[in-house]
């Protein structure tokens, strides 16, 4: 007791110094975690965006003059998210036959999480492919079991939207008028750090699809 009273001032100062250092260390640690989380989420968003761009810029390959190279995206009227989007390209085989390569994006709801006091419904975007021979210019509709998951999927999406735009930027449901495809999505970090700084990361782009017009008449 005597020891404490004799060195009271020193003890108080030491306590304050330790408290300040501990708080600074805590903040630095949290900042480091958030930086890592932010970097990981951004890296994921950029990779996913790159996959989408690669897919969409490749659609319609070898399709010739037929402008029908993707379906109108199916949209959920409640959430505004695109639940299904299909697009096609053709592959010319050595035998001279044509194989239609079909790609499908399907958005399935997963679970509801709470971030920043707000409930967020998470979705998984599953990418699947199917191949069908082209006969007389048409390819049969693949059965559900013929669709194969082909990677490039993501399961931490909070929003996903694909829109078909005309040459002048108007949204359209006419596949023959579509010259641009606008893709936007938002995803959430996998490792939340309380209190959360990064709640959702948003990405968007507009891509010109090919072939982007029917060749002028001869």
């Amino acid at each position, binding site marked *: 007791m005597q020891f404490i009273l004799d060195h009271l*001032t*020193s003890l108080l*100062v*030491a306590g*304050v*110094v330790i408290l*300040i*250092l501990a*708080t*600074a260390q805590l*903040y*630095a640690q949290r*900042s480091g975690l*958030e*930086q890592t989380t*932010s970097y990981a989420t*951004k890296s994921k*968003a*950029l990779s996913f965006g790159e996959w989408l761009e690669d897919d969409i810029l490749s659609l319609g390959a070898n399709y010739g003059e037929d402008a029908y190279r993707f379906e109108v995206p199916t949209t959920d009227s409640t959430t505004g998210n695109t639940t299904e989007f299909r697009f096609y390209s053709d592959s010319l085989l050595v035998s001279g036959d044509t194989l239609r390569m079909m790609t499908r994006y399907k958005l399935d709801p997963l679970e509801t999480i709470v971030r920043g006091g*707000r409930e967020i419904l998470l979705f998984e975007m599953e990418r699947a492919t199917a191949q069908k021979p082209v006969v007389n210019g048409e390819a049969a509709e693949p059965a559900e079991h013929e669709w194969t998951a082909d990677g490039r999927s993501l399961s931490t999406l*909070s*929003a996903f939207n694909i829109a078909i735009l*005309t*040459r*002048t*930027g*108007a949204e359209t449901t006419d596949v023959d008028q579509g*010259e*641009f495809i*606008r893709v*936007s999505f*938002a995803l959430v970090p996998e490792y939340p750090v309380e209190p959360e*700084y*990064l709640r*959702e*990361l*948003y*990405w*968007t*782009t*507009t*891509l*010109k699809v090919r072939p982007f*017009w*029917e*060749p*002028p*008449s001869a």
Partner: protein
Amino acid sequence: MPQTLLALLAMILTSLLAFNQQQSVRNNYTHMVGNEIEMAASGALMTVLEFIGSRSFDERTTPAAIEAAQTLPADSTHFSAAHRFGSYDRGASGCDLMAPYRTPDCDDIDDVDGLTGQTISVTLSTGLTLDFAVSVEVDYVGLDDMDRPITTPTFYKRVVVTAANDLLPYGRLEMVRIFAYDPLKAEADYEDVYGPLGA
């Protein structure tokens, strides 16, 4: 007394350390926010550039001009002079960078030249919007040096779009793209409106 001074010194040093740490954390946050805003801005500018490129290359290559001349321009001397870029023929309603269908008179690439502070909005998934002030510059460039604007009409137009927002790193983001005259596109755009050329 010496011990009190030492205690004071310890407090001062600790405070300095804490302030520096806080500043470092704040800079990290600012940097992270800037990166996120930059992602949204780059997506928006990509959209703007795509829609600028979807317009006719020059006033002389719009469907109406081709219909009047009944031919496609064969060389760059027919294109607009550089001093006629911008408001010269874009019409009173200006240019909508994100929805060109709203401003049909803004129908060729150089019509967007000189636009400054035009607001474009990016709508996030939460319904909130992020606004950017966009400026556009269009210049002719030559094949030998595509970084140097020239006044002589050529087959190449360089478009520089700049988005400004205080949250962006350095306050702005710039994208540059060069569009080349494509007679096939001009003919296809014409055919879309008037039918086959020469029919």
